């Protein structure tokens, strides 16, 4: 007797709009692959970060550190100089960039309003991307690190990453060209800036600084390095995170973003002024006076786009939270936190654009505070909010526990606040000692001043790591349950139908119910 095959009733998380549901199902596997591998690298990188952070204060602080220190003394792999770059690169490329690519795929697909062709290209790109990161990290541990900030991956890994990105960019170009006209979204502009800038930043930085540096380049190497790092913050992470916020905040809250008429100004002034924050790493150094001075002026002007974007996003987000009550849900607060941290990161950059403040803070842990604000405060929390929002839509499955999500949120919120307080203030105290005009105040005294803040920094990072760990476990739990359904359905279907079960997907299920 022919019965229609049993379908798993849609859980209700997939989009009810058939067009959006079709788009979601066309990008499901590439985006899930990006997110899953990203979370994996997040766990790896966070572990290394906590480890490295704990090495910055000697073993008398906590007994267990004695073990870490003896590992670091006796094995080159465990020394700070290798673990720290491995941690940062795992977080920047493995977690943030991979997750960012997942976001980019989904937002580009959604705003193009056509289901994407050839997800296989994307999957290949993701595979090569992760291969490059794994190989690069191993290379750092084995001693092939370039010791150029965020470009430590040896060239064999860097080229794998670049090729993977090229594949992805190919897909992005095709998708962009096949978009439905007349439906342009502001998030697309931000996305395109990010997608355009990354290959030139990464390729240029890698070619010029990896392995054998250009002969006779001297201090120019430092100029290129500064250009790269701050280009990454302002032209890759910032636009990517902002694309997500500009897409999700109006969508989730139903409120259009405030000061919308000023968005053009904010957009272009950000792109013009923000990359000049590179000179924050050049003040007082052996570099031309005009470059540094022009840079300080231009980077000081990022006040305008930061204020405009901050007021737009944070203003709308707070309004939305008030409108919906209870913080606007459990995912929305991540977006609010991300928007607020964008402003805080902008303020940190603003502080560094003041010459006297820069001279005080240049070589202190304030720089780390800046990194944490960009990487964690702004980008990671936005990415996590995005993952919480997107994954149920792709898998048509629910997260397992709202408490875990709330716990993650509070660990992140207090973690990042503590980071600013401890590491930002610690940088200030360290700077006061380092720049003390009394020659009796040696660097050892500066280090002792900084010691407590280093310990605090480890604790802050550990708090954020705790939240991230909860997130990773939650994701794993959700996936296990999801796989469980599929396996059971398969087994059950094969008993009933004596053939493997082919899920038709939520879109078809919805069509059936709607059509019936």
């Amino acid at each position, binding site marked *: 007797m022919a019965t229609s095959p*049993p379908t*798993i009733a849609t*859980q*209700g*998380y997939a*989009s009810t*709009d058939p067009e959006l549901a079709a788009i979601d199902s066309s990008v499901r596997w590439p985006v899930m692959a990006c997110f899953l591998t990203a979370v994996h690298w997040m766990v790896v990188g966070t572990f290394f970060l906590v480890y490295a952070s704990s090495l910055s204060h000697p073993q008398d602080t906590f007994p267990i550190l004695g073990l870490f220190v003896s590992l670091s003394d006796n094995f080159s792999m465990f020394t700070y100089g290798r673990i720290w770059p491995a941690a940062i690169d795992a977080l920047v490329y493995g977690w943030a960039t991979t997750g960012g690519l997942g976001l980019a795929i989904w937002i580009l697909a959604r705003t193009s309003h056509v289901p994407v062709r050839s997800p296989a290209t994307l999957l290949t790109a993701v595979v090569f991307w992760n291969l490059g990161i794994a190989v690069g990290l191993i290379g750092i541990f084995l001693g092939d690190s370039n010791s150029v900030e965020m470009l430590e991956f040896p060239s064999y890994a860097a080229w794998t990453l670049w090729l993977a990105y090229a594949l992805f960019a190919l897909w992005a170009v095709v998708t962009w060209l096949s978009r439905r006209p007349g439906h342009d*979204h*502001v*998030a697309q502009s931000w996305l395109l800036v990010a997608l355009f800038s990354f290959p030139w930043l990464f390729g240029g930085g890698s070619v010029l600084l990896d392995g054998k540096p250009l*002969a006779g380049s001297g201090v120019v190497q430092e100029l290129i390095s500064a250009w790269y790092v701050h280009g990454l913050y302002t032209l890759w992470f910032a636009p990517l995170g902002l694309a997500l916020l*500009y897409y999700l905040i*109006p*969508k*989730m809250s*139903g409120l*259009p973003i405030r*000061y*919308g*008429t000023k*968005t053009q100004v904010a957009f272009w002034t950000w792109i013009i002024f923000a990359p000049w924050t590179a000179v924050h790493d*050049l*003040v*007082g150094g052996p*570099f*031309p*006076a*005009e*470059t*540094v001075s022009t840079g*300080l*002026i231009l980077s*000081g*002007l990022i*006040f305008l786009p930061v*204020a405009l974007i901050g*007021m737009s996003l944070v203003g709308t987000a707070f309004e939305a939270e008030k409108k*919906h009550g209870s913080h606007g*849900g*459990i*995912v*929305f607060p991540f977006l609010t936190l991300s928007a607020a941290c964008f402003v805080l990161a902008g303020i940190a950059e*603003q502080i560094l654009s*003041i*010459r006297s403040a820069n001279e005080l803070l240049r070589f202190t842990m304030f720089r780390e505070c800046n990194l944490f604000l960009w990487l964690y405060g702004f980008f990671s929390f936005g990415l996590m909010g995005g993952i*919480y*929002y997107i994954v149920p*839509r792709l898998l048509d499955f*629910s*997260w*397992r*526990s*709202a408490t875990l*999500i709330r716990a993650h949120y509070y660990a992140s919120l207090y973690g990042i606040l503590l980071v600013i307080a401890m590491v930002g203030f610690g940088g200030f105290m360290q700077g006061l000692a380092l720049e003390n005009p009394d020659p009796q105040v040696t660097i050892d005294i500066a280090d002792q001043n900084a010691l407590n803040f280093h310990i605090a920094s480890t604790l802050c990072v550990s708090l954020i790591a705790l939240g991230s760990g909860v997130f990773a476990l939650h994701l794993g739990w959700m996936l296990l349950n999801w796989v*469980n*359904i599929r396996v*059971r359905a398969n087994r*059950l279907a094969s*008993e*009933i139908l004596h053939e493997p079960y082919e899920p038709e997907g939520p879109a078809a299920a919805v069509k059936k119910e709607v059509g019936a």
Partner: protein
Amino acid sequence: MKHEENPDLLPPEPVHTDALKPGAPDFVETPDIEPLSKEREPLPVWLYLICGFALFMAGSSFTGFEIFGQGLLDQGPGGPVLASSSSTQTAEVTDPLALGKKIYSGNCANCHHADGAGQPGMYPPMGNSALVVGSKERLAAILLQGLAGPLTVNGGSYGSAVMPAWNSVLTDDKIANVMTYIRATWGNKANAASEDEVTKARTKFASHPAAFTQAELLQIAPDGPDPSDKK
């Protein structure tokens, strides 16, 4: 049928609090609205004030020092004015002969001596040596990989000492400079060597295991001026 024994197609109910239900604010499917507000909302006054202040701070960076002096470094010389005589002329040294001479005195003069005369039986002389004024590729091979074994130069026999390889100690431009120097000093009048020639030689001889012998050198090139040396 088995499925009657398994009424549940789905795994146990998850912790389905209200916040996670499909209708919850985060998980309800909302349509894409026009993202940017079209209201002409005026910017707050404090923004203009702080913007003006930021501009003022930025502008103040211009005062206090010259910024358009090409070559002037950030924050000026930053040291006491030189105590030594300020009237001596200084010049940048880009002349390969001067650089080559300095490299020679730091690396080669220990054995081959500053006057290029060498040591009988041990270190061959530089002046009028066929190996020095001949093929540049061959000379580069000696410098890159070293030279060992019995050697005849200008009628004298050498070989009790080994010339080490300099490929990991000197870069290509330095090897080219020292080659230019020895080819133009002590009566030698051969042409200069370029960094590209040394780079090519480095690639070519990279796989050669150890120091060259005289026989191998003659195989690289016979005696006689370098093909590029047209007098």
